[in-house]
């Protein structure tokens, strides 16, 4: 072992430790930002030591280094600009986009490792197997994540897209990809076979995500994130780079855990999501929707809500998808602040899948300056509902459907917020349309529930004005 190899090995070890410590620090809001910076430090060490070792051992032509610098500048500035200007409501599609480019980069590195060896030494299966796996997984995540980002952005319709014979094409793409992959492992000089693997995998990624409903897209984003991690680890095997193997495996594990937790909170299995099914995210498109009993409800006005709020002691706000869609997080936070300033205890009950990505609601509220100590997770929130005077549900539906406790319906067994345990409930909603599960919510017919039909943002503004009348008098 030369001194250079020793130094590089040590540097990679340090960066691996920093990645793990960084992820570890991310588990508490107070240290999370430091955790991200620690992980970025690990990345800097990994990159610098790779540059040094490449320059000292391989050299390379000025053209190649020029192409590298040009690429880094172009991609880096694109990434930084998008990251700085993105609206917090659009975070899910940006995460998906960054995941897509990561998968694409992994595939490109594998193709380069294959092509650049064609004229040199013969590649053994120890190198070709990870290369093929990398191209396969990387290309699937590239095209799949782009489609998922498109669905989240609304460029591609959120409803499941399918065409006759889609399943046949899917199976065909898998067979072609695996067949060409096996062949190119056996004859590691054939670039055409590798390109066939690439093309089949790209098609597969598109076909895998198209039939998935927009509401399920977050789970797919997380699953594809895990797959990109694996693709990067495979690239690490192919070029014998331990920093890439470690980081890729960490992300693969992280993505898998998140995917499982998310699927559980949505009451879906990962398998049924990938195979496509119900869950269009658009209630009107759901076939066979059971109608909610619209006659037996109590409608309330902004003034009614304001009186209840102004004379409450404990208020809980239950934000849902509707709040995120209306971008009403600032209005909700303003209302909460007004109440808090008058001595009323206000907390937010946040379901794990509220918003458009698990934890997305917390980001939106944090953007509106809500301190994280006021954001209650499922268990804490459910303990607090029993002493809650009024629960203000903003654009949430299935996550507070008491029918989840009964067997035999679409939400049975789903972990829910016990909004019905509050003394009084107000639901801000645009209409009586059912949520993503497409079933009625008996909470809305509860005698203690008042329904307020309006856009979340407008409604909160009206309530805020009305509350001011009572609390300042």
């Amino acid at each position: 072992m030369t001194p250079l190899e020793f130094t590089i090995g040590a540097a990679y070890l340090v960066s691996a430790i920093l990645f793990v410590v960084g992820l570890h620090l991310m588990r508490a809001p107070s240290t999370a930002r430091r955790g991200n910076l620690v992980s970025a430090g690990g990345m800097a060490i990994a990159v610098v030591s790779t540059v040094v070792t490449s320059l000292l051992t391989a050299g390379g032509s000025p053209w190649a280094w020029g192409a590298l610098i040009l690429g880094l500048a172009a991609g880096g500035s694109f990434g930084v600009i998008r990251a700085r200007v993105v609206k917090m409501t659009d975070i899910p599609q940006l995460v998906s986009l960054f995941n897509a480019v990561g998968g694409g980069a992994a595939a490109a590195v594998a193709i380069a490792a294959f092509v650049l060896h064609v004229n040199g030494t013969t590649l053994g299966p120890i190198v070709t197997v990870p290369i093929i796996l990398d191209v396969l997984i990387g290309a699937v995540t590239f095209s799949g994540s782009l489609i998922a980002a498109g669905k989240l952005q609304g460029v591609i319709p959120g409803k499941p897209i399918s065409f006759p014979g889609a399943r046949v094409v899917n199976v065909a793409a898998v067979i072609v990809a695996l067949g060409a992959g096996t062949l190119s492992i056996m004859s590691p000089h054939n670039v055409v076979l590798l390109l066939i693997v690439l093309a089949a995998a790209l098609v597969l990624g598109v076909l895998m995500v198209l039939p998935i409903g927009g509401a399920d897209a977050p789970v797919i984003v997380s699953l594809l994130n895990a797959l990109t991690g694996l693709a990067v680890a495979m690239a690490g095997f192919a070029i014998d780079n331990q920093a890439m193997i470690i980081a890729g495996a960490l992300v693969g594990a992280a993505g898998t855990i998140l995917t499982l937790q998310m699927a559980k909170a949505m009451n879906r299995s990962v398998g049924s999501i990938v195979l496509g099914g119900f869950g269009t995210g658009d209630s009107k498109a759901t076939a066979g929707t059971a109608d909610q009993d619209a006659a037996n409800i109590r409608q309330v006005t902004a003034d009614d809500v304001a009186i209840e709020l102004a004379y409450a002691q404990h208020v809980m706000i239950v934000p849902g998808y509707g709040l995120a869609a209306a971008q009403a997080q600032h209005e909700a936070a303003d209302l909460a602040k007004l109440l808090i300033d008058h001595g009323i205890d206000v907390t937010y009950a946040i379901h794990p899948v509220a918003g458009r990505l698990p934890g997305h609601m917390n980001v939106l509220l944090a953007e509106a300056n809500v301190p994280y100590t006021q954001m209650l997770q499922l268990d804490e929130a459910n303990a607090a509902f029993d002493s809650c005077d009024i629960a203000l549900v903003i654009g949430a539906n299935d996550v507070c459907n008491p029918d989840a406790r009964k067997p035999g319906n679409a939400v049975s067994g789903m972990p829910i917020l016990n909004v019905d345990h509050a003394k009084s409930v107000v639901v801000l909603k645009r209409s009586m349309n059912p949520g993503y599960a497409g079933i009625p919510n008996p909470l809305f017919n509860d005698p203690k529930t008042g329904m307020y039909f309006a856009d979340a943002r407008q409604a909160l503004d009206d309530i805020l004005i009305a509350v001011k009348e009572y609390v300042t008098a």
Partner: protein
Amino acid sequence: MIETLFSNLAIFVLSLLVGFEVISKIPSTLHTPMMSGANAIHGVIVAGAIVTAALADSPIGYVLTFIAAALAAANVFGGYVVTDRMLQMFRKPTAANAPARKEDPS
């Protein structure tokens, strides 16, 4: 060659186990920044782009280097910046009571 494979496989499997262990304790409050942060970590593929540059000796190699570098750089820089932007908004109550409300670009 086979020794390298096995030491790499051991590293891979142990890293997976460490990943499962570390991530399973993250609260749902931080799931979105966590996913974004993990996303940034797989931007380490930029190291692969650098290795590719060192090997490239033909026009096709230069093109692949450029593609890999551009995609990887968008992943790694964008990922860390957007994660940091999210996390810097998570405040303690004392900081939130301060009247200063930062300009937000939306």
